[in-house]
């Protein structure tokens, strides 16, 4: 506390209790006295802290609502003035809205809405019967066949990303969506797996070695809500590929030897007798 200024006067200044004349005098002394300034700042910060601690609005707060309303009124006044100026310049006065009597719309001639809907439904049903259901792409086995062939050509000879002697451990590492334990096929040795591009999404390419050291591959792609389809086989450039779907997954097996392919399909739980030749149908 300074010795020159009465604390009561400092307090009165901080609490806004001084008359305007006394306030000006005090502020003149305030500019020349840093110790007094420090004390005033301390007490003002106390006041702010107390008001903030108990939820009181700050003293001398801006009336934002009023400011916004004033701005809005000013803007609307300016807009009205500019509209009046534009109307005056164009020489067109604003016309009052005309009151119109409701007029009944004329009814369209021809069949009514119910009859039109009925005709449309009949035409759609006839087109499904004659042409078949629309397709957004090749049927799943065909797409899986193409994806399997592409994956095997691109990745089968590369080192595996997930080496696994234990199929269950491999399935655990691949996560819940791809957590399918690769089937142990007789005469085939599981080498590992690689991530590959499926027909619609990411797939896992399980790689096996046969007795001659040739790669045999099984592509497993998670698919949502897809109907089970029987396996279809195709021969492409000396590579036997079979694809099928089931249990929410798409499968594509590829091998150079038909015996290896049959062993892999059998290990996957698919009956080889249901295998049909897709190549004969597509080519």
């Amino acid at each position, binding site marked *: 506390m300074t010795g020159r200024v009465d604390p*009561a006067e400092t307090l*009165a200044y901080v*609490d*806004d209790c001084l008359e305007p004349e006394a306030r000006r005098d005090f502020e003149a002394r305030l500019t020349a006295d840093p110790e007094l300034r420090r004390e005033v700042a301390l007490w003002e910060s*106390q006041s702010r802290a*107390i008001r903030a*601690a*108990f939820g009181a609005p700050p003293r001398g707060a801006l009336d934002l609502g009023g400011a916004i309303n004033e701005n809005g009124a000013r803007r609307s006044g300016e807009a009205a003035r500019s509209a009046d100026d534009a109307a005056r310049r164009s020489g067109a006065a604003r016309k009052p809205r005309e009151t119109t009597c409701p007029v009944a719309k004329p009814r369209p001639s021809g069949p009514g809405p119910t009859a039109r809907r009925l005709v449309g439904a009949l035409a759609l049903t006839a087109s499904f019967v004659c042409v078949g259901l629309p397709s957004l792409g090749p049927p799943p086995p065909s797409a899986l066949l193409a994806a399997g062939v592409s994956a095997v050509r691109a990745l089968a000879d590369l080192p595996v990303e997930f080496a696994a002697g234990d199929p269950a451990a491999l399935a655990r590492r691949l996560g819940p969506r791809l957590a399918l334990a690769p089937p142990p096929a007789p005469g085939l040795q599981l080498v590992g797996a690689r991530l590959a591009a499926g027909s619609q999404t990411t797939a896992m390419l399980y790689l096996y070695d046969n007795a001659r050291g040739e790669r045999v591959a099984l592509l497993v792609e998670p698919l949502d809500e897809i109907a089970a389809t029987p396996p279809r086989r195709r021969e492409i450039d000396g590579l036997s590929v079979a694809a099928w779907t089931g249990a929410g997954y798409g499968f594509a097996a590829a091998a150079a030897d038909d015996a290896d392919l049959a062993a892999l399909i059998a290990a996957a739980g698919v009956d080889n007798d249901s295998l049909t030749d897709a190549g004969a149908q597509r080519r």
Partner: protein
Amino acid sequence: MSSVREWSDDAGALRRFGLALVRDDRFVFDDVAASALIEKLFRQASLTLVECPGGDRRAARVRAFAQFVRLYRRYARRLALDEDGGWIETPPSGRNCGSAAVGVRSLPLELREALLLVVLAGFTHREAAAALDLPLAVVVDRLVRARTRLAAHMGAARDAAAAWPQTAHLRIVK
């Protein structure tokens, strides 16, 4: 319309003042009781304005606050008598505990009521003296003492907060 808004602002100010002044939850049981008390005090104050149309609305506001202060003083005296002087105001639970709030609540009642009337309710020193029924000089003296003690408390709290990271590693963790 503006009169209604002013009374509403005054009621809010009295509610904040009451929450800051009262350290015993038993004084006002809950929000419903607090609202009823505040409404009663301002209705009494507005009735004096109706009886004297030329009366000052600000004076009516001072009367409402003064009535609240008198009620709480009476309550504190009665509890002190009932408990043979052993009644000590304890900080109520569930309130905010910032350093300013804790500092204000740690002040004695006579300092706290003067400080809160001026800082929180926006009373001038003369109005605070009228509400507390005390001479102006006594109120100013209490205000200076309250601010000095509060500055010491807030400074200590600030020092403790600043020193925490250096002393935290000295804590014994089993």
